[in-house]
């Protein structure tokens, strides 16, 4: 292929090049965040929290971007996943099984939204609001009618290892690490869970079913013409996507040490912000890069929010307003930038 063919063949020109660019951007972003946290006095707990929520960002990427389905179900899937996990752990079930159950619970909320959309032809936006509304009561019932289930003294994925890890950390690095031991443990365990889930998801999106799901979001007419049931693809897609949010719910519940019926409030907005932040900062191209960007976007969101809290010394009651403003900044800035660009073009 000729050297100057890059304009006619942008795909070929991308190839290996972009792969390098992407990882370069990931590394730069990591360094910037690290510096930001160091000098902005942000506790590393924000990373653990971001990792706990990261899969909810991936959910929004799957529904909005891959399936092209306006799905708000995460607000209901998250507390249900959390509640199922908390109740099971409270009852003495192993944390791993509780997490899988949370995935299933989240997937069922996705199934509900998909079925309402398909059977009643109610569009995703409304269908998911219906599901969120109903899910609130279901979550309360799962938690035995209480709005809160504490996990104090129960064995979670974190608490199982926390004492051993703290002792090991103090032994190796001295007593000043004692305060950070739980945060570090969370980062390691949640980081591992997120990586494993992303790898499985990457494999899944590149199976035949995954290909059909990706195609459904772009051109469902063609999917039908190919002899594939696009409704089935929407069902599978929404189930997998919201299952991830259920899983995220179970992680966050173990981190907080309690489940609460209001945990998912406003999560959809944060997920959307995560997807946009990931896209703007990392400019992902391939399936794998897009997945990483969505998860990383949530991390950046939570760290930015934590920084605002510590910088302005705000009380936790302000959390939702700060969330809303960070989301507004994430969604609005690229658009303002575009407007400014076209304004400049018109006036030059």
């Amino acid at each position, binding site marked *: *292929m000729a050297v100057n063919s890059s304009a006619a063949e942008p*795909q070929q020109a991308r190839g290996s090049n972009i792969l390098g660019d992407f990882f370069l951007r990931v590394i730069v972003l990591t360094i910037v965040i690290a510096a930001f946290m160091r000098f902005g006095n942000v506790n590393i707990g924000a990373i653990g929290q971001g990792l706990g929520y990261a899969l909810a960002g991936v959910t929004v990427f799957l529904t909005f971007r891959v399936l092209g389905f306006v799905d708000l179900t995460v607000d209901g899937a998250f507390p249900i996943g959390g509640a199922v996990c908390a109740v099971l752990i409270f009852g003495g079930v192993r944390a791993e099984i509780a997490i899988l159950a949370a995935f299933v619970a989240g997937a069922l909320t996705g199934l509900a939204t998909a079925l309402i959309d398909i059977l009643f032809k109610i569009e995703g936006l409304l269908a998911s609001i219906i599901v969120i509304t109903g899910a609130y009561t279901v979550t309360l019932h799962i938690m035995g009618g209480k709005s809160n289930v504490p996990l104090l003294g129960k064995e979670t994925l974190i608490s199982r290892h926390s004492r051993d890890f703290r002792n090991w950390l103090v032994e190796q690095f001295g007593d000043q690490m004692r305060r950070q031991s739980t945060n570090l443990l969370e980062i390691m365990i949640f980081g591992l869970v997120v990586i494993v889930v992303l790898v499985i998801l990457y494999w899944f999106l590149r199976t035949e079913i995954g290909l059909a799901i990706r195609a459904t979001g772009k051109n469902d*007419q*063609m999917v*039908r013409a*190919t002899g594939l049931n696009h409704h089935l693809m929407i069902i599978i897609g929404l189930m997998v996507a919201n299952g991830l949010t259920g899983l995220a719910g179970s992680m966050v519940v173990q981190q907080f040490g309690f489940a609460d019926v209001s945990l998912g409030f406003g999560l959809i907005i944060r997920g959307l912000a995560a997807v946009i932040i990931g896209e703007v900062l990392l400019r992902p191209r391939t399936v794998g890069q897009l997945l990483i960007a969505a998860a990383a976007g949530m991390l950046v969101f939570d760290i930015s929010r934590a920084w605002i809290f510590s910088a302005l010394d705000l009380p936790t009651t302000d959390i939702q307003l700060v969330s809303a403003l960070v989301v507004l900044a994430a969604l609005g800035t690229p658009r303002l930038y575009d407007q400014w660009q076209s304004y400049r073009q018109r006036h030059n």
Partner: protein
Amino acid sequence: MLRLDNVSVTFNAGTPNEVRALQNLSLFVEDGEFVTVIGSNGAGKSTLFNVVSGAVHADSGRIELDGEDITISPEYQRSHDIGRVFQDPRLGTCPGLTIRENLSLAAIHGRRAGFRRDVKKAEESWFIEQLERQRLGLEHRLDADVALLSGGQRQAITLVMATLAKPKLLLLDEHTAALDPNAAEQVISLTQELAEANDLSVVMITHSMQQACDLGDRVIMMNQGKIEFEISGEERENLTPADLIERFHSLGSGAELSDRQLLA
């Protein structure tokens, strides 16, 4: 191959906007036959395709494909045996996916999507062979995003996709109408090649009187949801666009030809 018995479709039944898109239409297409369909706007040509492909369901009547009653089977199931190419080049392929991924998707045709790898190494030479036949050079661009291709290129790929899994029937809905003359010609010759190579039954809607005369074994003229006349055999052999336009006008009011059809 394809048999329609007294098929009727009415849109907005019982309202002032009622449209009787198909009125007791019967049609038989033989194995390996190539039929062209002409008619004015609103004659029911596209509804005919939609009712055969399952995008629209018949209010009454019966549809058979290869001896099997498909009147009520869902669209995606019928697609196992029916390949389709639409007028809008954007409808037939999936933007955001590569040529390879689009072809792989089409290759799933006829079986269930499973957990096998989406793009398979083993299919590559098959894809390349199919694309080489088009002489568009697309065999070198398997990993290009389909969104980057021209309308003619996308339509050519759609044709390959529609025939990849060896359907029994191919429905072409003015599939060259949105293309420039050069691309249209290429797509038409590719159509003929693929139809012959796969021994397909083809029904093609066309706006071009020239295409209706040049291609296929039989011309069907539709008007107001009915088949107005058919021309086949010897008469069809000697048919010219001028003859067709004359037959068209002899139908009197209701059969209006658009300028586009007269010019084409």
